């Protein structure tokens, strides 16, 4: 599984990245977390508001920092 955190490095993007790291560790997923900070690349996912989360090239969340539980739900849904 490849997880991408989209955002220009703002505080909220770092929070989302930390949540994703924690959720991956807790669920024991075999996943790689990448940061995408380049604007053209961010926009290629159709995202205008950061932070955003892309799992296996599918956009699942944009424009807010979700709760930890929501990240877990999103990861579980994509892992199936």
């Amino acid at each position, binding site marked *: 599984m490849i997880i991408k955190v989209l955002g220009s490095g703002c505080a909220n993007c770092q929070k989302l990245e930390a949540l994703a790291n924690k959720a991956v560790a807790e669920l024991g997923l075999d996943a790689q977390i990448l940061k995408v900070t380049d604007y053209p690349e961010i926009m290629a996912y159709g995202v205008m508001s950061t932070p955003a989360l892309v799992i296996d090239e599918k*956009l699942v969340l944009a424009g*807010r920092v979700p709760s930890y539980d*929501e990240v877990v739900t999103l990861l579980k849904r994509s892992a199936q």
Partner: protein
Amino acid sequence: MDPFYPLQLLADWLTYSVFGLDKASRLGLSVDFFLFDVPKVLILLAVVIFFVAIIRSFFSPEKTRKFLSHSKLYGGNIAAALLGIVTPFCSCSAVPLFIGFVESGVPLGVTFSFLVASPMINEIAIILLFGLFGWKITALYIVSGLVIAITSGIIIGKLGLESWVEEYVYQIRMGDGGELAEQTWPEKLTYARDYVGEIVGKVWPYVVVGIGIGAVMHGYIPNDFLVKYAGPGNPFAVPIAVLVGVPLYSNAAGVIPLVSVLVEKGMAMGTVLAFMMAVVGLSLPEAIILRKVLKPRLIAVYFGINAVGIMAIGYLFNAVLR
């Protein structure tokens, strides 16, 4: 009845019975003011931020962009300014938002109406103005903010400054992210609750410091003390208020309780409104972020038109609100 009356009773009881301060003393007045205003402002913030988070969950920059693409001058500017109030957007997303708008055919002037309205008509400012000054001043503030956002967007649109945007912006093509799953109600509520915690957790020190300074002034500085310096008679008060407001960006929560005391001491209302708008609407960090997509000339025009508009509002209300 004033819903905050029980808080006033509590503050009075603590100040005069528990601490045993004299009702006529300056220290008593200051302490009472502080003990009443801090819980009142924090409760107002928590309640309204919760509902703002729920309302905003129905909007997104992506939907707003779709709605505004291919909109026209005037009508588009009005819609953009109104959507700027409710669309969730933080200045750290200013660059992707700007590129996304331009790419989908939102006219430059309409994009600017959105960019001006979004920070200027700020939910924290609205709540605090309402709580401390009442609905008339709050309504004036919102209408003035909309007028500035709409007219500055129209001016930028009329000037045809498309070439003052960095060229690479026009080459970026946006992908289609597909439809995101709508948040469920439990998710919306959890998000709103967490958002209240995050915002109140971040701004409470500013609120306490702002009210603390205000409380000291409330007790120790005579009323009408500021009339001479910041009253309607001083023509320099408005530009000075705007200049002072710029570096205070994003500290609306600490600034407004302080401002309510400045009014009590004689600062003119137009000057107060201009100051507030400068605090939330003229943001140096946002200007620096926007440098990635705008040439310096266009940033200067954007800032200049905004500053002039804010000062015009200040002078207008100083003349009208006597």
